């Protein structure tokens, strides 16, 4: 039986080095060696994704690299998830995320989803071209803490204001934090439409989400 610390490091490296198969193989080794799945995820896969996100912020990694890192992370997760002990399932804050109606550009939204996923949020992805009312309905139905909206186009950014307006109209605005992002979006726009926060990129979105719901420390355990 090898040193679990080294295994965690290797898992983390496999994620950073975008090696999907190696991540899965290492995860299988972790299971075979009886390493705690929760720790392997937290100190291996999630740790690696954290390093990848740091490289992304430092502009060493870009979107293609980050997507491949997340593939490696998910490959490891798929192996480890069934072996999680029941008590490890912490209640994770839920985020409802989607691209607003009229827009189908979802690379940014997917990145935010991956990063939130790797940071202890449970993400409900509504996809792209989502009508405003669906955000409201899904947020209420899922008991989400955060509604995250994305768009790349100036012609569709008003859909974000519409979501905020509908939340207010339904009398549930106070139950959710609304965060927005995308090419044409700015803090000024967020303030104008009454959103709770704006973030310029995926790594910042995680910090914003944590700040919005005031999560003290990263809540590990993920949804694959």
């Amino acid at each position, binding site marked *: 039986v090898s040193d679990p610390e080294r295994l965690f490091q290797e898992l983390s490296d496999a994620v950073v080095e975008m090696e999907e198969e190696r991540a899965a193989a290492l995860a299988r080794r972790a299971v075979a060696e009886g390493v705690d799945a929760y720790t392997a995820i937290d100190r291996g896969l999630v740790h690696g994704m954290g390093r990848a996100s740091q490289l992304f912020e430092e*502009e060493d990694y*870009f*979107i*293609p*690299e980050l*997507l491949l890192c997340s593939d490696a992370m998910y490959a490891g997760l798929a192996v480890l998830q069934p072996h999680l002990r029941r008590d490890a399932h912490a209640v994770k804050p839920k985020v409802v995320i989607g691209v607003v109606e009229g827009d*189908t550009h*979802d*690379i940014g939204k997917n990145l935010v989803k991956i990063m939130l996923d790797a940071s202890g949020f449970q993400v409900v992805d509504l996809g792209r071209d989502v009508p405003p009312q669906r955000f409201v309905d899904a947020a209420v139905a899922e008991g989400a803490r955060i509604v995250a909206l994305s768009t790349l186009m100036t012609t569709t950014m008003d859909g974000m204001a519409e979501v905020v307006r509908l939340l207010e109209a339904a009398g549930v605005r106070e139950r959710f934090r609304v965060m927005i992002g995308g090419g044409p979006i700015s803090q000024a726009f967020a303030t104008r439409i009454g959103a709770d926060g704006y973030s310029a990129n995926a790594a910042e979105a995680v910090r914003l989400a944590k700040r919005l719901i005031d999560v003290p420390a990263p809540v590990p355990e993920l949804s694959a």
Partner: protein
Amino acid sequence: MTDLTPKARLLKVLRKEPVDRPPVICTGGMMNAAIVEIMERTGHTLPRAHFDDRLMTALAEDVTDATGFENLGVPFCMTVEAELLGSEIDPGTLACEPKIRREVFPSVSRVEYQDVRVLAGSGRIQTVVAAAGRLARAHPDLPVIASLTGPVSTTASIVDPMSFLKELRKDPEGAHRALDYVTDLLVEYARLALAAGATAIAIGDPTATGEILGPKMFEAFALRHLNELTDRVHALGAPVILHICGDLKRVRARRASRSRRPARRQRASRCPRAPPCWRPPGARAWPWRPPATAAAPAASAGCGSTRPGGCGAQPGTTRTGPWPARPRCWAIWGWSCPRPWPGCASSARGPRPGWPSPRTSARSGTRRRDSPGSTPEPSCWTRSPATPPGPASGWWWTSAPPRWWPPWWTCGTAGSG
């Protein structure tokens, strides 16, 4: 200089010549000014105008009238190419532009390749080309800009963008193949638009931004295919305006730092479908300046090619690596060697009258080439060609390998310019 027409002014600026004042243009395509107020006033509305060339013409005129932009730009969306290649589009509304509803291919390895010449003759490319033609005929003084969606953006609109971005790393050859295919279509599209009368080609390639791809991928994919597209449009004799979204500072910084390491500057050798000398620096059909030194024979020798005229490499360039045994698309050879007519001062474009037809060329070629005495003086087509006009679709846009390189290939370089 005050009597410059907007068209002349734009062309001068694009040739980097002095002008009285900068031209003020709006290219159309991803950057268009067809705003709701204009459409409501004139009744020429989107999304109908995306699909009707008369309406598109009228709307382009409305935009120019209402805004004062000194050009006419078509189309008004970024989905023309992707739709033609099979993606499902959402036509949008009056206020919202069309977009891709579903990309047709899940990965670059699943792209189905069709004949781009057939494709370019169909679908909304024809709408845009017809509109550009109408505009050019009705407004000879205004530049007509045909806007293409760039190769990276178009490929990311036919292949699921998440897979595409990953496959830039996982399957670079497949990604290049898909990008080559899209680039071929775009060149064909540009050719049709220019033949119809467009003044310039604009390329909008937002997905090619270094902010998404990073400097390495930008250089390996975006830069290579944008350069190829630009060169091939230049070879058609038209200027190219390129738009990429985002901040290029980091990409440029990286390129600058790389250029300090000359050992790594083997840019062209990474291009599998063109010989290393396929794009000689400084030798371009646009802007139609005579070359500083007429050096055709040396060029062919320097290139290492056995073909007359070579592919236009500068003297002294040496070919590294083997000549590709069988280039995938012969049509490209004609276009990507951008020195067919460097001596021609004319800015005319489209199929040149007087080019030998493919059949004639192939039959009589060898004899002509082997005995220069019987070869008619290489002449620019603008100087009343000796050879009779060939069909508009010469061999250079057929996929058959040319068996003979006609005399005009060396036009202008042997002192005839």
